[in-house]
């Protein structure tokens, strides 16, 4: 059974239509990440699920109930915002208990739930402080705590880590993942533009662009089998290498041809039937280019070397197009050096040059 179901939803700001008939089903206990560049509509979708935004058409179901016309507080959700949105004039304890006090929950129950949430997030010593006496990481912990005491079935996160510095972001990311595991059956919908957050946290990722869903899949599917050029380019850092070329029929099946470089595609699992002569874009992840003594593509010239510690990124140029190669940190290379690259045809992605869709 799905906990959150968005059915054919259309959202409109005055005359501008933001979504047109968007649908999404989220199962119980699932961690869903909405990923996309800013302005792609991911936050709008989250606000529509929360009920902070009226939908023009379609329905929103949460926990088997049609909540399209319900107030945010009656939807069984909790939300965490990018700017923390803590009430500045209340102590941490008052912040966390505000929702319960509004719902007229009995006092002992409020205390019990606040204590439990504070314990879980290790903010018990901060309970009597005011938000302006907390650091950014502590504030976001309190904001998560405030969501936690609501005992909601669905948690909505709107870029919760974007205001934090890199180190804290990594720490809290792990903590959110741990929290999800510990809460068990809580569904989480998480909006971010950070593909690392998406890859590490999600059970399934929803990649969005220009108000449309581009692909829904597990992080593995999104990374290894991107549905189109946008998804392929947006996920992964350093970016996937794209080489323009065309398909050609050789003796042992189809081959990819770009300039005088050639790659046999007999091992490639085509999703649609390709035709010879078709213009295509070949996508290869930097870590799937292997530096070999005897490989498919010789004669790449090293341009720039970026040592990153654990691994090294080598930028190579070639008349056909420049590529980035990711290799181990111990591999040394000098600019100007000539490399031979090996490509594994089962690891590549092929896209139609015309539509950008995966072949």
């Amino acid at each position, binding site marked *: 059974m799905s906990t959150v179901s968005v059915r054919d939803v259309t959202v409109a700001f005055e005359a501008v239509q933001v979504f047109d008939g968007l649908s999404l089903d989220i199962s119980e206990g699932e961690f869903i990440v909405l990923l996309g560049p800013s302005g792609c509509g991911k936050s709008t979708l989250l606000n529509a699920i929360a009920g902070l935004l009226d939908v023009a058409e379609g329905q929103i179901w949460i926990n088997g109930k049609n909540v399209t016309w319900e107030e945010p507080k009656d939807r069984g959700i909790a939300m965490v915002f990018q*700017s923390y949105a803590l*009430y500045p*004039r209340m102590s941490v304890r008052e912040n966390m208990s*505000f*929702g319960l006090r509004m*719902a007229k929950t009995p006092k002992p129950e409020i205390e019990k739930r606040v204590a439990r949430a504070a314990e879980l997030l290790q903010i018990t010593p901060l309970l009597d402080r005011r938000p302006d006496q907390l650091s950014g990481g502590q504030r976001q912990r309190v904001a998560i705590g405030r969501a936690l005491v609501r005992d909601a079935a669905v948690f909505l996160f709107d870029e919760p880590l974007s205001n934090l510095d890199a180190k804290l972001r990594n720490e809290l990311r792990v903590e959110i993942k741990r929290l999800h595991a510990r809460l068990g059956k809580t569904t989480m919908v998480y909006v971010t533009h950070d593909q690392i957050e998406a890859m590490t946290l999600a059970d399934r990722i929803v990649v969005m662009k220009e108000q449309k869903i581009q692909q829904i899949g597990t992080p593995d599917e999104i990374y290894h089998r991107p549905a189109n050029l946008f998804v392929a380019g947006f996920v992964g850092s350093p970016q996937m290498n794209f080489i323009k070329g065309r398909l050609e029929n050789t003796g042992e099946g189809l081959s990819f041809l770009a300039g005088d470089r050639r790659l046999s595609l007999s091992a490639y699992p085509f999703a649609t039937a390709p035709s010879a002569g078709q213009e295509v874009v070949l996508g290869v992840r930097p870590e799937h280019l292997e530096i070999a003594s005897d490989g498919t593509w010789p004669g790449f010239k090293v341009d720039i070397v970026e040592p990153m510690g654990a691994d090294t990124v080598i930028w190579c140029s070639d008349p056909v197009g420049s590529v980035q190669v990711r290799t181990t940190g111990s591999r040394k290379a000098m600019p100007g050096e000539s490399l031979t690259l090996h490509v594994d045809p089962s690891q590549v992605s092929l896209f139609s040059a015309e539509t950008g869709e995966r072949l």
Partner: protein
Amino acid sequence: MSTLVPQGRRPQRLTIGRIGVYAFLLTAALFFLLPLWIMVMTSLKPMEEIRLGNIIALPAAMTFEAWSKAWSSACTGLECNGISVGFWNSVRILIPSVILSIIAGAVNGYALSFWRVKGANVMFGVLLLGAFIPYQVFLYPLVRIFSMTGIYNSLTCIVMVHVIFGLPTMTLLFRNYYAGLPIELFKAARIDGGGFWSIFFRVILPMSTPILVVATILQTTGIWNDFIFGLTFAGRENLPMTVQLNNIVHSTQGERAYNVDMAATMLAALVPLVVYFVSGRWFVRGIAAGAVKG
């Protein structure tokens, strides 16, 4: 040749430009202080000394007689009870007017910036337009309306007028201040189950201190200094201090008591003056806070 090696703080030099700036500031300060000085001096002199015409000189025989006369026994037309009657009238008009207009403005501004009421922008535009139409245009129709409803010439009437005319500025002030608050705060409160009033009183109002201070200052000085509404709507029993002051200054028979006039004027100006001195810092801060985003 100087052998000074540039290091640390750059030495301050008194340049001609700087002297000019100080000279200008000093002249400007003197220019604005002079009338006040003359008023204070005149009010402390007996009439014989004033007749000599040395208006800037210190009083030779200082006396507070003019002040006590202005407060309790100067004649405003036929009655001779001083300006104190007007003072208390003004206080009775001021307190309910300030409180009610601020409440109305705050609720209006809150509704306009957070609740996205249908037609909010049109409503706000119309309200602002009201702020730009000269008051005189409203006087006659308002007098007719109030006399038809039977509350013309009463305390209720003058308070209502002040609340109505304070609404555009108060709404603008609060709306702009609230536009600067993060909308996510409001969203969080809605998810926590707050309604229109509970979010206003528990979340938004506690964050409004600076703008509340500014609104209080604006309304207090504005309503205290009002003349035309008081004269038109308050009725004979409730005439504010400004109207009484005018009566004192313009209805003397025989010799004009300059010292009493000056003392009465300063008494009338006392309240706004105190308000500015006490809260000037807040005033500047609040104006800036409300003006940055809008």
